[in-house]
């Protein structure tokens, strides 16, 4: 109105038209948006029909009563009304009333769902249904209070839709869980997914993420997060019976052939993984860091350095199972050359320690440990090289200037500065080695029963003798139990519990590494 008084009636009319049309239609995106919303509504209707039809076919009334379908109808009406309003079917002049209509229907439907929960006395579910709409309402209220220019009605409408969708999703998910392995469950699953999507869209609008493109991008990230959460919940849930009832026994127990055995546990796996970690620290770390220092500090620029670089990079991309083949070839199957080497090493070892280190044709802890050390070597080299590269040139030049030799520069300047980065890389490599199973399977780690060696620390011979023993490791224990679960279901929870233990270690190591890196990045920035 104000614009038209300024003159140029033509322009003002167009401006007003634009304002009216904005966000409702006109752009392909808006059409897509509307189609999506409408499609969801139609899908909901189909799903409802499916349920009713199925109920009629099995000559059974819906056991859970008339309220959920009723609520669903209302929700669908709310959705349709919203679509209609977007399209302007309800008329421009009645915008407020249509808002009120949508809002009211949303509230009524959610209210119906809540009432039903109260009537059933099912407090847990009621809490779910109540909490989320309340949060939504609160957010809307705060926002409209803080920002008087924002349109409260629009927000209330979103709130209504949000409540409706989340309520629906929760009810449906509950039903899915109730009817285990339900054949028709997919209808509900689909509906729940839809409701969650609508709720997510509403949430995105609150977060200020408005374009469809952005919603999709955010969805990708959010989905990854959800997957991680579901994974953790599932694993902890599966392992909980074991973790809560017999953690002590489980910790000290050994591999057993029956899941009901009281002595079933992971001690052998933990010992195996511990020694593998020791092998990695002793073999891969020094060699890897030295190689990285050579590549960054010493290597001249020539073809050979290029070859080294390419070799390291490609080694990092070789599938872990191929390293297993290498371990199998070198330590277990062997050829004339490797046998000769093993004999030499053994004779040297025996002359000193009076016990053999490697058994020919046997998969031993030594074989597994060295294989994994080889596996993580390229990772250590690459991360350490990156850390060394990040050392400022001025530090080196300063040290050279006061007369230090190359090695003195490296020892006194380069390595201390690069230490945090190297540490991060080595921790990541270590956690990779501890979680890796495929090479160990090929080298021949034990998945079944393993005779325990209980005199590990009784003497030097026993201590060293275990390197020539057959072995297992945490991931291998898990694989073995998961495969046994097909025959003996009790192994499932045991595997879940073992995974929780493994994950605690691995995630702890990873987060220490990441925190360290972030700390030093911030400190140096």
């Amino acid at each position, binding site marked *: 109105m104000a614009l038209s008084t300024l003159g140029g009636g033509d322009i003002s009319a167009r401006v007003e038209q634009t304002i009216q049309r904005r966000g409702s239609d006109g752009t392909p995106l808006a059409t897509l948006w509307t189609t999506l919303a409408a499609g969801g509504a139609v899908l909901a209707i189909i799903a409802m029909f499916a349920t009713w039809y199925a109920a009629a076919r099995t000559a059974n009334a819906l056991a859970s009563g008339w309220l959920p379908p009723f609520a669903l109808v209302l929700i669908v009406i709310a959705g349709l009304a919203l679509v209609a309003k977007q399209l302007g079917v309800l008329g421009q002049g009645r915008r407020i009333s249509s808002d009120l209509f949508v809002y009211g229907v949303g509230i009524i439907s959610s209210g119906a769902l809540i009432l039903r929960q109260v009537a059933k006395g099912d407090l847990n579910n009621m809490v779910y249904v109540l909490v989320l709409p309340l949060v939504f309402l609160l957010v809307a209220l705060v926002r409209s209070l803080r920002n008087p220019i924002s349109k409260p009605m629009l927000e209330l409408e979103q709130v209504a839709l949000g409540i409706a969708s989340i309520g629906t999703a929760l009810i449906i998910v509950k039903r899915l869980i109730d009817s285990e392995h339900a054949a028709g469950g997919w209808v509900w699953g689909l509906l729940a997914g839809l409701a969650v999507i609508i709720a997510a869209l509403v949430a995105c609008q609150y977060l200020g993420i408005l374009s469809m493109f952005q919603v999709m991008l955010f969805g990708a990230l959010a989905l990854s997060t959800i997957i991680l959460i579901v994974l953790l919940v599932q694993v902890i849930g599966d392992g909980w019976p074991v973790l809560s009832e017999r953690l002590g026994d489980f910790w000290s127990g050994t591999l057993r052939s029956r899941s009901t055995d009281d002595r079933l546990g992971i001690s052998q796996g933990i010992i195996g993984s511990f020694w593998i970690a020791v092998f990695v620290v002793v073999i891969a770390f020094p060699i890897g860091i030295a190689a990285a220092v050579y590549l960054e500090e010493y290597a001249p620029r020539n073809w050979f350095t290029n070859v080294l670089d390419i070799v390291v990079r490609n080694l990092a991309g070789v599938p872990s199972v191929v390293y297993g*083949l290498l371990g199998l070839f070198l330590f277990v199957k062997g050829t004339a050359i490797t046998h000769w080497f093993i004999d030499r090493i053994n004779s040297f070892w025996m002359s000193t320690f009076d016990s053999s280190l490697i058994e020919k044709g046997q998969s031993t802890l030594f074989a597994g440990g060295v294989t994994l050390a080889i596996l993580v070597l390229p990772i250590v080299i690459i991360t350490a090289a990156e850390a060394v590269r990040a050392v400022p040139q001025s530090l080196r030049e300063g040290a050279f200037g006061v007369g230090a030799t190359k090695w003195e520069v490296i020892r006194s300047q380069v390595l201390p500065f690069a230490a945090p980065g190297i540490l991060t890389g080595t921790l990541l490599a270590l956690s990779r080695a501890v979680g890796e199973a495929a090479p160990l399977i090929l080298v021949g780690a034990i998945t079944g029963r393993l005779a325990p060696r209980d005199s590990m620390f009784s003497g030097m011979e026993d201590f060293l003798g275990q390197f020539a023993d057959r072995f297992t490791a945490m991931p291998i224990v898990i694989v073995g139990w998961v495969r046994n679960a097909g025959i003996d279901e009790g192994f499932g929870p045991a595997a879940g519990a073992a995974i929780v233990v493994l994950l605690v270690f691995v995630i702890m190591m990873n987060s220490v590494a990441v925190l360290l890196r972030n700390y030093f990045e911030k400190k140096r920035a």
Partner: protein
Amino acid sequence: MTDFSLSDVVPPALTTDALAGPRARLRKEAVIRGVFFAAALVSVLISVLIIFSLIKEAWTFITQVDWGVTWGEVGWFPRRGLYDVPTLLVSSIIVTVVAMLVAGPLGLGAAVYLSEYASRRTRAILKPVLEVLAGVPSVVLGFFALFFISPNLVEKIGRNGWLIIGYTITAFAVAGVAVWALRAWRDSSADSVTIFKRVIGLIVMIALVLVLFLWVNSVAKDCTPVPGDIAACPSDSAFTVKRSGQLAAAAIGVGILTIPLVASVAEDALASVPRQLREASAGLGARKATTTRQVVLPAAVSGIVAAFIIGISRALGETMVVFMAGGAADAARFTSSPFDGGLTMTAGMASLATGTDSVVGEGLTFQSLYFVGLLLFLLTLVLNVLAGRFVARVRERY
């Protein structure tokens, strides 16, 4: 006047020998350099050993095997002397494709969001999620794929896949028609005949869908359960949960493992796109989404391709998830369906090697392991080299 010689005032000329310091110090330097060089050579040694071992054993297989049993047989039954390579190859391809369908969009989407849109706070919260996901051992994903993805996702989709797809397509078709019809209603320029036609079209569409729906439901095999009435659905074979998994379940697990890798490589590529390009685009009046889609993504395209290739290489080489949740023990029939159990190249190797005593057994069983390993090694090598080229191209350009 005292005797004065020049050498009293001017110090002796500084030679390099004098600067070098004591010889022992130099010798120490050379030794240390040699040690570091030797450490760097270890990786070359490992590469040589890998290639040597693979070729040596695979060569025995290649020269001694009856090639008739490596192609067109019923499946991969190494212990019975049937080494049908297509069984493993096709399963590997299925797993890789499905895994990339999961990891590609999710990884790329996450990377674009983190690099282009995320605020500092969002980034601080969500970036670690990907890092934790990257650190999850593959056996954990194997467990998850077998006990969660398989029963809750794959079996449901597998049993009702066409129904789901059909319903979704029809629903959105109806919605499209509805939008089209209602537009006419609103458009003041449309005459009443057009509106009438479109509304009739909408009604016909809905009627068609209803008929379709009733028909599908009457022929659908599955039983819709009634809450509280378990007897309504007899627990026949269709509802018993398979405890061994399927290729699709394993593939989704592999995909989840690959998400962080794809995301991190793609994010690096996006980060290397210079800021000036974005600013220029914004200066021309482009929206953020337009800038991202039409400027940033094309500029980073080789890095994104590299991310996908590295993801494919990783998915090909992933062993434990398929071994645990792929639905086959130590042999597999040929299958081209993701809803069957199967063995990929990696899982075939792992299952053959569970318990080494059987590997170092008779026949060519042991050698077949290395033959498959060589195939896998060459495939991933080609992919990695290719990815390296693409990454290098990004580096060169900016």
